C-alpha cells in the first residue's frame, strides 16, 4: 500500500467523517432538518412573547429580535458542539477499527458540522432580516467574528472534556443536559448583564459563557458595550480548558480506542 502523508490522511478522515455526520444529522427522522433550523425561531418567538407580556413595552435602544437571534445562534452553537461531542465516542465506536480514525477526529468532525449548521442558520437570519427590514447594523464585525471563533475553540475544549468523562460515566451526558439548561438562563442571552442588580452581576460574571455572549452582543450593537467583559478571564478559561482536556485525552486515547 502506498504510504500517505499524515496530513493527507487527517484530511481524508475529516472529509469522510464530516459527510457522514452531516448525512446522519439530516436523516435522523423526517423532522431532523426541520428541528435543526426551526429551534432558534421557536426560542426567539417565546422570549419575545415573554418580554412583551412581562414588560409590556419595548423600550430598548436596539432591536430585541435581532439581539435574541444573535445570542441564541451563538449559545446554541456552543451547546450543540458540547452535547454532540459528549456522545461522540460511544456513537463512533465502530469506526475505531480503522486505525486512522482517532477518537478526537470524531470530535473535530462533529464540531465542524455544528459550525456549518450555524453558518446556514446565520444566512437564513440575514435573509429574513433583510426581507422584514430589521435593523441589523453591526458596530464591529471583526470583533463579533472573533467572538464566534473563540467560542468555537472554547466549546471544542469543553466538548473533549465532556466526551472523555462520558467514557467513564454515563451520567455525564445527563449532567451536561441539565447544566446547559442552567447556562441558558445564566449567560446573558435574553438580557444584558448591565441591567441586572450589582450583586447578581458579580455572580453571573463567573460564568465564562456570559463573557462570550456579552462580548459578541457588546460589539454588535451601538447601544451596548463590552465594559463588563474580562478578556483575561476568557483567555484563562480557554487555555486551561484546552490544557486539561487535551492532557486527559492524550492519557486516555488508547483506552478509548480499545474500550
Amino acid at each position, binding site marked *: *500500500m502506498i504510504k500517505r502523508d499524515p496530513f493527507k490522511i487527517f484530511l481524508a478522515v475529516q*472529509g469522510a467523517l464530516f459527510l457522514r455526520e452531516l448525512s446522519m444529522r439530516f436523516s435522523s427522522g423526517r423532522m431532523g432538518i426541520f428541528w435543526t433550523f426551526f429551534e432558534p425561531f421557536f426560542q426567539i418567538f417565546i422570549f419575545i412573547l415573554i418580554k412583551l407580556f412581562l414588560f409590556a413595552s419595548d423600550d430598548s435602544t436596539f432591536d430585541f429580535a435581532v439581539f435574541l437571534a444573535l445570542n441564541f445562534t451563538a449559545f446554541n452553537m456552543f451547546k450543540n458542539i458540547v452535547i454532540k461531542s459528549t456522545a461522540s465516542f460511544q456513537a463512533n465506536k465502530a469506526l475505531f477499527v480503522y486505525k486512522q480514525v482517532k477518537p478526537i477526529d470524531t470530535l473535530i468532525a462533529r464540531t465542524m458540522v455544528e459550525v456549518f449548521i450555524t453558518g446556514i442558520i446565520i444566512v437564513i437570519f440575514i435573509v429574513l432580516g433583510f426581507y422584514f427590514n430589521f435593523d441589523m447594523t453591526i458596530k464591529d464585525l471583526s470583533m463579533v467574528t472573533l467572538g464566534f471563533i473563540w467560542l468555537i475553540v472554547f466549546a471544542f475544549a469543553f466538548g473533549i472534556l465532556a466526551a472523555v468523562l462520558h467514557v467513564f460515566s454515563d451520567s455525564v451526558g445527563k449532567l451536561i443536559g441539565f447544566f446547559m439548561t442552567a447556562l441558558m438562563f445564566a449567560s446573558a442571552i435574553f438580557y444584558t448583564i448591565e441591567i441586572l442588580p450589582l450583586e447578581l452581576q458579580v455572580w453571573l460574571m463567573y460564568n465564562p459563557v456570559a463573557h462570550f455572549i456579552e462580548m459578541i452582543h457588546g460589539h454588535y450593537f451601538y447601544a451596548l458595550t463590552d465594559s463588563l467583559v474580562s478578556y483575561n478571564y476568557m483567555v484563562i478559561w480557554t487555555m486551561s480548558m484546552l490544557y486539561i482536556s487535551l492532557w486527559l485525552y492524550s492519557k486516555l486515547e488508547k483506552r478509548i480506542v480499545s474500550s
Partner: protein
Amino acid sequence: MIELRNVSKFFKTNQEKKYILKDVSLKIPSNKNIGILGRNGTGKSTIMRMLGQIEFPNRGNIISTKSFSWPLALSGGFIGNMTARANVKFVCRLYGKSKQEIQEIIEFVKDFSELDDYFDMPIKTYSSGMRSRLSFGLSLSFDFDYLLIDETLSVGDERFKKKSKEALMKKIETCNVLLVSHDMNTLKEICDSGIVVHNGNISYFDDINDGIAEYMAINRQ
C-alpha cells in the same frame, strides 16, 4: 517484518491480571501467510487487534513498517443505520480514494457480496452472513500488506465459501494474511507459517504443520 519487543498485554479480572502476552520478544519474517492458533480465550483476536493498531500492549512495542487492514471479524466496522453503499463510500474516503476509484470499488463490492437490493438497505437489517460477505468483499478492494482475518471465512453457503476462498487465494498472490481460525484445513491451505498462543507466551513456527502439531499437543494436555 513484524517485531514484538518485550510486549506484555493483560486484562484485569476481579482477582488477578490475566496475561495474554508476558514480556514477549519475537520477530516474524515478512512475506509469509501466518495462521494464529490457540485455545478459546487465549487472546488470538487481541493479538490480531494489536497488530492492527486498534488495541495496544500494556508494556513494550510492536514495530512494523507494513500496512495492516482492519480486522475482518463477524461484527464491527460498519454503521448500522447507513446503507452498504454509504458504508463502502465512507471507508473508501477514509483511505483517500478518488471519486472514480470509489465507483469501481462500489461496483466490485456489490457484485462480490451478492447483496443485490439489500445493498441500498441499512446494514442493521442484514444477517451476520450478509454483513461478513460485505466486509470481506470490501477488504479485497484495498491493497494492504497484511489482511487481518478473524474467522470470517466460514460464513455463507458452500458456494459462497468456495467463492471467497478462491478470491482470497488470488488476493494473497499480492499480499499476506494473518488468519485466526480453528479450521485446520483452512489454515494448512492458506498459511505458510504459524503462531501458537498459549499461557501468556507465543511461539512462531516457520512451517504451519509444526504449529498445528504444537497446538494439538497443547490440546491433549
